[in-house]
């Protein structure tokens, strides 16, 4: 399957989210992982040509990732 640049960006963001989850406590880590998964699944039905929406969500996702990767945030539910 060939991926477009935007699709690769989305997968790269998801990978970053999982990498950041690894830095959290062993107990909280699955919570962060499932939260990331849920956030992505919210817009799984989006048309792949809806570029502006996807770009907006990517920016939003990066901002969220930055926020949740702060070491002060220990757990999420």
């Amino acid at each position, binding site marked *: *399957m060939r*991926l477009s640049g935007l699709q*690769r960006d989305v*997968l*790269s963001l998801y990978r970053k989210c999982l990498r950041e989850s690894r830095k959290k406590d062993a107990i909280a880590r699955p919570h962060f992982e499932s939260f990331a998964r849920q956030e*992505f*699944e919210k817009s799984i039905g989006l048309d792949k040509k809806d570029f502006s929406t996807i770009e907006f969500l990517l920016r939003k996702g990066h901002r969220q990732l930055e926020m949740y990767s702060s070491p002060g945030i220990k757990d999420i539910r």
Partner: protein
Amino acid sequence: MFRTALLRSARRATSQAARSSGAIARPVVPSSFITKSRFAPSAFQAARCYSAAAGLSKPEVEGRIVDLLKNFDKVSDPSKLSPTSHFSNDLGLDSLDTVEVVMAIEEEFSIEIPDKEADAIHSVDKAVEYILAQPDAH
């Protein structure tokens, strides 16, 4: 008094000259050769002991990846698991699941796969191939 001092210093000078000329006359190359040949082999042996490579074999890598997928609850049909199965076509995984699998493989072999290579891994045999090409995977 002055004469004895003069004699003594003269004697010292001659003895020193003899000693240094002796050192010059001594063949330098063979002595360094001897010390090398005496110590070099033991140093080599120590290095060999520590550098014995425990490379990963192909069946071992395949087994570990298949085991990892067995424990992955999103695999739709575990009976289709084989060393050649494709993540999305055979196992029914979507692209996010594929990312999760590749990240799990990273952790299993304690390496980091760059995004570009990770995007190219879509099947078990691709993953095995990639792991075998990594010298620091273990």
